[in-house]
């Protein structure tokens, strides 16, 4: 029997560990994989799974995200009934901003109730993965569960980075550990939850009335259900590719993974296409002297230089005798002649003039946020212009919209330019 289901995508987070890349847009709208934005994967999973009633909960700098999604045309979500709806925080209730993931859903109870669904699926707009939610929903129904959480087996050494789920032999959830020092299990929660709507609604109201709660699914709602034994939660084991591209390093790594001969994540599956808002660009052009190896190039790009292990987005120009290695260059960026660029992430609409070197030389720890800018990576934001003949050192960062005048001396390794 077909159940009525509504998807809610939590897309309000900033993703602070992406540093300057999320300075003026939310994490779900960060570009990925040559032409996509991170939220495209979750949205495409929804429509490929036959879920057409999708709410996107936004909060932090939502402009780019709203512009990207619009009425949901690329995902066939421009529907007569249902379709995609952007759900920002609003006035008219006694609430203000979304205080936590659970509070965000609580504030939209009325919206969900209009659909009168049997189930809701709570998703995050921050992750890269391809998943048929129908399998998870079938599992949920077959277990007669109140809620089901998708989880992934991770190496036990890395388990302390995740929210860990403890289960019994029948995948019944018996407990949680939030980023534990001594994990008791290797099942990491993916932030994908299926709930019976009536059950969830009751829990959300209870949680809202609890003054001590942080109104967060992982911290409050789920542990409380298990501890007080007030509902049946099950773990659904997912064994595909799933990445949280929460840091500059992981964003860079997951992009470069796509350039490998057999990438772990398949963008090319004709039965599981990923959709995005596509700008109209002519096909890519590669010039006579260009040398392109192990790279993704994209529509509208014009390559006259050398590329190795790099992801080049739409409309990028790479000048003659320029060498780009292990880098991610985002939409409409222009790179002049005789440049050397290594281990760099460059944002949209940026101009790099001739004879610039980026990411070479000695390695110095970042002076400002070594936890964000590390691994010798260079991060350059959007709409930056880098003048001719300068060099930009390792572990440095240049914020979006930085003026040319501030960069005339180049950027030393480990510096951050705002």
């Amino acid at each position: 029997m077909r159940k009525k289901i509504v998807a809610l995508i939590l897309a309000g987070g900033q993703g602070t560990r992406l540093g300057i890349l999320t300075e003026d847009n939310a994490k779900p709208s960060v570009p990925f994989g040559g032409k996509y934005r991170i939220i495209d994967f979750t949205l495409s999973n929804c429509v490929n799974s036959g879920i057409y009633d999708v709410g996107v909960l936004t909060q932090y700098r939502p402009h780019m995200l709203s512009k990207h999604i619009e009425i949901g045309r690329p995902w066939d979500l421009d529907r007569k009934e249902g379709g995609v709806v952007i759900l920002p925080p609003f006035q008219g209730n006694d609430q203000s901003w979304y205080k936590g993931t659970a509070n965000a859903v609580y504030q939209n109870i009325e919206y969900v109730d209009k659909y009168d669904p049997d189930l809701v699926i709570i998703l995050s707009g921050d992750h890269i993965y391809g998943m048929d939610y129908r399998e998870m929903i079938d599992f949920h129904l077959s277990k007669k569960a109140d809620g089901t959480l998708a989880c992934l087996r991770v190496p036990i050494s890395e388990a302390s980075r995740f929210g860990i789920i403890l289960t019994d032999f029948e995948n019944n959830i018996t407990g949680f550990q939030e980023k534990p020092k001594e994990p008791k299990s290797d099942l990491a929660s993916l932030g994908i939850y299926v709930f019976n709507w009536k059950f969830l609604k009751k829990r959300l109201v209870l949680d809202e009335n609890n003054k001590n709660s942080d109104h967060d699914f992982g911290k409050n709602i789920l542990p409380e259900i298990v501890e007080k034994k007030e509902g049946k939660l099950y773990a659904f084991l997912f064994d595909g590719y799933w990445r949280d591209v929460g840091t500059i390093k992981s964003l860079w790594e997951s992009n470069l993974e796509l350039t490998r001969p057999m990438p772990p994540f398949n963008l090319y599956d004709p039965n599981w296409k990923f959709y995005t808002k596509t700008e109209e660009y002519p096909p890519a052009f590669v010039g006579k002297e260009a040398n392109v190896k192990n790279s993704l190039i994209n529509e509208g790009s014009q390559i006259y230089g050398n590329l190795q292990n790099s992801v080049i987005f739409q409309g990028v120009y790479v000048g003659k005798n320029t060498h780009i290695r292990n880098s991610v260059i985002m939409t409409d960026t222009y790179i002049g002649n005789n440049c050397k660029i290594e281990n760099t992430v460059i944002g949209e609409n940026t101009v790099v003039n001739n004879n610039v070197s980026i990411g070479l030389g000695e390695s110095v720890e970042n002076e400002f946020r070594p936890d964000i800018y590390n691994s010798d990576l260079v991060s350059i934001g959007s709409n930056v212009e880098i003048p001719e003949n300068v060099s930009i050192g390792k572990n440095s960062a240049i914020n979006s919209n930085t003026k040319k005048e501030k960069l005339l001396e180049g950027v030393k390794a480990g510096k951050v330019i705002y």
Partner: protein
Amino acid sequence: MKVLGIIFAGDRGELLEKLTNKRTPAALPIYGKYRIIDFSLSNMVNAGISKIGIVTQYNPRSLMDHIGSGKEWDLDRKNGGVYFLQPYVTPNSESMGYMGNADALFKNMDILKRGNEDYVLICSGKQIYKIDFNKMFQSHIESGADITVLSSNSKEHNDMKISNLAKTNEDGRIVEWISNPGEKFKIDKNNTHVLNAFFMNKFLLKELLFATVPEGNFDLIDGIIRNNIDSLVINAYNFYGFWRNIKRDVNSYFETCLSILNDEIRKELFYEHGRVYTKLKDLPPPKITNTGVIKNSIVADGSFINGKIEDSIISRSTRILAGASVKNSVILEGCTIEEGACVENAILDKDCTIRIGKKFLGKPNSPKILEKNGVF
């Protein structure tokens, strides 16, 4: 100013041989992701025309599939949008098909009668060029002409087979019209090559159609333009850019395809006077692996390049496997070139396969064609 656009996309294109067995020339793929009609359509849309009739006749299936509701051109509208003008049977005539392009418009008089457009722009859907039509409209109005005809007197056209040549006086008014001039006339300041785009008042067109078609004159150029050289002011509007007529023959299609590898032509066609719109397919980016080599080529979305490519056009969803080589060729959508195969001076139509180690070689000036779904 409100303009109605008409695009003729109905003929057979016999000279394109196998390429147009199953499609009309306007629906022929070009430059990796486009169809030829995209250029006429985009020119019109970029000039602000939002109601366009497309005259179809010869196998329009792939053309209709391509254009669909007109969404990609912003032509899925409540007012205006795209109209297919396909021949039909009436109680009075059992004959299917249009007798000529004037007859096609006459039989679809409704599109001319309805709507509040003042002007009509008539184009062919088989030509590749980018133009700002607004300048042509402006010249039409400023010169007070009855009909303005797009033309070119660029020397480049001396190498083309020319079907219509117009002699103009100093003001740009056409004083003599010569069809199929042969080799005798060379293009110069006063001998100009007619590029098959006409701009005129809609009511004038209606009247001229009523006056000529029932009399048995079914040809637009003959009945409406050539016979009225003396009585109407017909001006030539000069176009200086890149212009190709695909319909001529396979060689000219091949040459036009590969011409996009020239930096200047690419810049003019793709980046000037607005974008070229086409049906999008949401394919992942093209991927070049470490065995892939690519020089001076165009690569469209969804392609895998493991082999060697030089001076070629690679369309969407093409797979070039390791050790394969493609040189000076046009590969249309969905082809697979298997390991060690070699393709040179060839046109592979959609969904072709070249088997392991096979060599599919044409001559530089006469490309070898593999028909749609072909396996070699």
